[in-house]
Each structure stands twice: as C-alpha cells, then as structure tokens.
C-alpha cells in the first residue's frame, strides 16, 4: 500500500501522440477513472473517453469504426465478472471482444491495439496503470497501419 508516488508523466517534445479511444462503463470503470482523479494519480493524457452505461452496449462495429477512423488503439473497460451493474453485460461484451480480436487478426491489424480490461469503481490506481500500459503498448506499436495506408 505504501507505493511511492507516481512520477509526473511528462511528454518528450516532438514525441508521437497516439489516438486512443476508451469506451468504458458508467458504474465501474468510469467511476474508477473518476477515483483516480480524486486521488490525483497521474497517467498519460493520450486517451479519450466515451461513456456508456454498460460494456454490453458496445457494438463491435463501434470498435471497427474507431479503427477505420484512424484510432491507434481502443480500450474497452467494464466491471469485473460477477460485478456487472446489469448482472451480465460484461460477459456478453467480453464474448464480442474476442470476436473483435479475431477480426483484427484476420484483417492484418495487430490485435494488441485493442484491449478489454476490468476496472472496478474502487480501483482508481488500477485505472491509471491500465491507461499507462495501453499507451505504452500503442506507442511501441506505432501509428495504426490504417492511418498510414490512407495517407
């Protein structure tokens, strides 16, 4: 519990900033992200959030649309299994997300660009870790080939 305070996340000048979309559920991950705010837990600012009530709401096409629009990465985050505010929306979302991953592989898009995580309303610190990790992963993968291709 006595983790040392996070180093402020400072961006290097001229460093490439990925475009990452986060679609997260209202009850767990959005609340967890708010908690990270309350706790002033710093993480990189490269993610933009769209709030839905439940990850079950997320159509696979939303994710594919994001990639088609040029997203470098997409994060879907919901409640832990068994903790869904709507009983089982996260299970149903998770099943669909496997399909997203296999679709991406078939298309030749690195499936690491897409991730589903589970962050509860009390896991502010975890949210920061998740975002940092997603940003690091996307940075190591570089810009989306779809963006590169459309150039």
């Amino acid at each position, binding site marked *: 519990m006595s983790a040392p305070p996070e180093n402020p996340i400072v961006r290097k000048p001229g460093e490439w900033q990925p475009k990452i979309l986060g679609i997260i559920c209202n009850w767990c991950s959005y609340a967890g992200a708010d908690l990270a705010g309350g706790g002033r837990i710093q993480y990189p600012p490269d993610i933009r959030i769209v709030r839905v009530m439940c990850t079950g709401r997320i159509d696979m096409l939303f994710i594919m649309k994001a990639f088609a629009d040029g997203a470098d990465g997409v994060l879907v985050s919901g409640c832990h299994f068994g903790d869904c505010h709507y009983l089982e929306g996260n299970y*149903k979302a998770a099943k669909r997300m496997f399909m997203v991953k296999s679709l991406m592989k078939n298309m030749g898009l690195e499936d690491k660009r897409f991730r589903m995580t589970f962050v509860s309303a009390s*896991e502010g610190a975890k949210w920061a870790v998740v975002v940092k990790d997603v940003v690091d992963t996307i940075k190591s993968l570089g810009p989306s080939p779809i963006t590169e291709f459309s150039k």
Partner: protein
Amino acid sequence: MAAAKKTTKKEAAPKAAKVAKEAPAQAAEKAPQASSQQHTVSAKDARIGVFICHCGTNIAGSMDIEAVQNYAKSLKEVAYVDNYQYMCSTPGQKKIDDAIKDHKLTGIVVAACTPRLHEPTFRTATKEGGLNPFRFEMANIRDQNSWVHMHDREGSTEKAKDAVRIAVAKAALLEDLFPKSVPVEKTAMVVGAGVAGMQAALDLAAAGIKTYLIEKSPTIGGRMSQLDKTFPTLDCSQCILTPKMVDVGRSPNIELMTYSDVESVEGYIGNFDVTIRKKARGVLTPKEAEARGIVGGGCNGCGDCDAVCPVVKPNPFELGMKPRKAIYIYHPQVVPLIYTIDFESCVKCGLCVTACGPEKRAIDLESQDELIKVKVGTAILATGYDIFPIENKEEWGYKRYDNVITSLEFERLICASGPTGGHLIRPSDGETPKKIAFILCAGSRDNTGIGKPYCSRFCCMYSLKHAHQITEKIPGAQAYIFYMDIRSFGKMYEEFYYRIQDEGTKFIRGRVSNIQEDPKTKNLYVMADDTLLDRPMKLEADLVVLAAAIQPSADTNRTRKLFGVSCSMDGWLLEAHPKLNPCGTTTAGVFLAGVCQGPKDIPDTVASAEGAASAASIPIHMGEVELEPYFAMCIEEKCAGCGMCVNLCPYSALSLVEKDGRKVMQVTEAKCKGCGTCGGFCPGGAIWMQHFATPQIVAQIDAFLLGGEQ
C-alpha cells in the same frame, strides 16, 4: 401526443420545451409510443451552448481555459460559449438558463467535473432554461483530465478540447426524453439483524413502514450480543441491546424472518421482488402452529427438548467454548425465543417430539426450506463482519498454542453469561491468568499480504476495555498492551485511554514478531521490539489475546451481488459517495448500514443505520420515483424478428410479438434497465438505446478521430 412522439431535431427545442413544461407526466406516459417512430436525429440545426468551468484552480490550474473556449467557438454546432469560476454555483447555473433563452440553444455542454457528480445539477439548470433536461451532456475535464495530468498543461488542454468536441457531437444529437415515474411499494427490507439492522428496522417501523428484517442465524442481535461490556462507558452490551431486540420482536411493523437467507432479487427501486429462503427450522412458532390447526401450540422456549436431545455440538455463539444440542437456542435472551433444529447433526430419534408433548406439538422433523416472495420498495444491507482467521498469521500461534485466544473469545470468557460464568481462565489448565498480553493490530494494518491493510477501528478501544476488566476482576493481574498507535478518536475515548494508563496497564509500542510456548507450563513468550526504548524485549505471559482484524461477513459477497452492490478492494460494500452519500449505493433503492460498509464501532454503526433508514424511507414516503429514461426501443422497420436480443436481455424485458403479419421485438419498459446489451448486439441495428443511441455514440467516435467532420 404527436408533439411528444416526434423527436426529430428540427422542431424539438421550442415544442419539447413546451411539452416538458406543460405536462411532463402526460408526455412521459406517451413517450413509449415513440417506439414505433423512426428515430432520425440530425445535428443540422443544432445550436449548442458550451460552458467551461474553472472549478477554482482545480481545472484552470492545469489547462488553458481560454484555448479550450476558443476551440469550442470554432465548432460548427456551437452557438454560444462561456466560462465561469464555478459552473455549479447559482450564478453559473443562471448562465445556462439565460443562454438557452437568449441564444435559442438546443443543447447544453458543460465541461467540468464528472457527470457522476454534477449531471443532475446541470440537467436541472437545462430544464429551468426551458430545454428538456436530457439535452445536456457533460465533458469530464477535471476528474479524468486536469487532476490526472497536472504536470502536462499542453496534453490536458488538447484532451479537454477533444472532450468538448466529443460532448458537442453527442449533444447535437440528443433527443427529448421523459423520465418515467413508478409507484414505490410501501415496504422496506433490512438484511442482517445485528445492531445496525435492528436499528434501521426499528426506525423504518417507527416511520410507519412495514419492514421485513431478514437474519441468517436463528436469533437477532449479531456481534453486539456476544460482547460483554462496551467502551468507554462500560455499559453491559446485552443490557443495552436486549431492549432493542425485544422491541424488534414486538413491533407490529417489523416482520422478523430469522434463520432465513435472501435467495434472489429482481426489479428496481420501488419494486424489488425478493425471494427469501426460510431455512427448515424444525420447530413451529405459535403462529405457524395455529396455521396448522394446533391451537395454543408451538414453541414457547421451555427447553424440554434441549434436555432430552442426545446430540452434542459446539455452540457457535460461544465460539465453540460451550456445548449445544442438535435442537438449540444460542443463549437465554434470544429473539425470537424459538428453538432450532440443526438438521445436519440431528439423528431424528424423536425424543424431542415426545418431550414437547401433544399440546404444543412444536417440533416437525420433516420440515422443509420454504421460499417466500415479498415485494419491497427499498432495501438496506446490514450484513456486518466476521473475525479475520488470525491463525493465518502463524507467528502468533493461534490454534497452535492453547493460551493464545482472540478478543471475541476473551469477550465470551469475561462475560457473566459466557461459558465460564465470567471467570477468565487459561484454556490450557483452567487457572486464572495473572500476566496477560494484548496484541493490537493482529492482522490489521498489515501489508504483508496475509492480513488486512486497513485499520479495524475498534480494536484499540476494546483492548483498553479488556485491560480495565482484568485489573478490575483479577486482583494482582497485570495487562500488557502491544500496540502500534492507540487510536482513541471518539467522544470520551482519549479520556478512557488515560484512565487505563493510570490503572497500571503497561503499554509497549512495538509489533510482536513471534510468540513461543513453554511446552511444560504452557506459558507464552512474547517477542517484540520496544520501539520507544529501542530494544528487543521478551515477555512471559499466562495468556495472549489477539485483537484480530475484522473482514466482511462470509455471505456479504453473495448478498451484495443479489442486490447489485459493488465492493471496494478489501471487500467492504461500496457506498455511492465516501463522504456525501455513505449510506447509499450505486443501485437506486439499496442502502448500507453498519460495518458492511467498513469498520465502525457501535455508536458509528447505529448512526449509520439511522442514516440508512432515513434514506430508505424517503422514496417510500414520496410514493413514486423517477427512473432514468434510458430504455431500449425497437425500430420496427429494421427489426427482422430474429429474436437474438430476447435471449441476451438479463431482465427478460424483451419479447417477440406478431405485428402486421411479421414478428418484431417489443420492450417492456418497466423491466428494461437500459444497459443496452441488446443494442450492442442487434445485427440489424434495429434497437434504439435512448440517450446512448448508435448514431450518438458513432458521432462521439467520429468527433474524436475525424475532428468533428462527419
């Protein structure tokens, strides 16, 4: 009617405002009709007002508000931009009100904290300006931006611009929505009948609300009934608790269901359908006996059955330090005074049936679990705590050494109604101990991964009380308290601490590293580092009492999932807001009382229970509640009638119906909770999730990635 149905953008603003003002209830009734309408939201004529909040320096300190404002101005849907120190203040809200009127706005975006905090505030402001409150969208630029990118001004300004653009894109496509009012059942439920549950039930009952009080064990009273004295006043715990227990048993508004579990919960605030499993008790209450035609029969608590029962088992109320029979009561003051058969150990010899006699005929060895369905408006969880299994901290030898006991065992041993009649003894030889060591933070404030990281909050105080009790009861006895910090934070607590110091108890600041037993004398060597004297020490003690940490009770996790309540990382139930809504949960109509929310002493527990009871009584006294209108709707023109959504819905809210010669899906709005699981899957895009509709979400994604061009 037609006015409420059409939700197209063109006519929406003035007309909807009128409808909302004139007859919101009527409009809400008619809203379901919209399901047959084609939803054609369009951002063409949108005039969005954007308001950027500084939140003092909370936001303004980490980003360039002016840059965000100028950026917002450049967006084509935006008709008006303003910023203010505190948008949630009265002048801030007034700005929204005025701008709607002056600039004919069709939607509002406030870039400020989180919708989880101030969405209701700004929705009200939007409504006061004459717009439908659901034409409001919030851009979170504080909790998920300025607070988490404090050292990256450029990054957070860019992120705020994007957040505003995303919010504007959605706001431009928002429709008028009308919350549905539903009646609230005038009954409540309290789960757990410890002091918290009892207090909550008594308060609800006193407010005229019929309350079901569900308790898993055969008697009410909970942990508090196991305690001997209470700090710092040294009241006898049972003496102050039993009047409440009796009141609960007597109250005409409380339906007490002991030896029962919650089996399932369905429904929503105002209308929870709860199924309760009444476990087979084997003994009839006088009421139940009467229902079976045995007039004047049923259990009267005489105990004749207990006397003849041949099966002996440890009594869990006495932590196994006293026997009970297979037919038992925990202690003489139980409420209700009805015996219970432990069917796992009962041999069905029938001796108790004979002893009970032909008049009472209270015993039914063939009794079965019963499922009872009740309907309640609100529910309070008061599921309490268990003692952390302190044997996991092996260095202290609990369960290995006879003379290492827990504080709860100490309570029973020092209690006049306990297994030894109040004589504190050493379990190894029955002798009276003279040197007693108390070890605080046993498993609490423990970052080793074995114990609990949190402070259990009442162990310091009860250990002080224990030290007092032994100096009072055992002449010449010496108490040693090994502590990290003494946390005596309550009213008259610090004074109590001074008193115990003056009585001669020795305080040693240091964590106990190890306890070893002398195999012959069964005395214990307590090894610690005295951090005040900066030297290691070894103390020979006759008895060691571990102030074990507490943890959520065993059934907490199961129960919370039934009610859709989250928990924090350590398992305690999660309140809606740690400071401003400590009794509420994120599930509307479900509240928390007592320790299930986090460690509390008795005064705090009772206060929390009274708070929960008050909160739970509000919807019941209001008579109706508004549900957020995030229902699913079927776009019948697109629906192929495949029925995939029907199986996906966790609430059985969807069904296939025959319409114009083909099958289409139909939503039962009262059952729909708006998760959107159906809408996320529908292969034909035929499901319209109000407020989270596909075009709205896609517009947000596009706004982010394509810079607002669609």
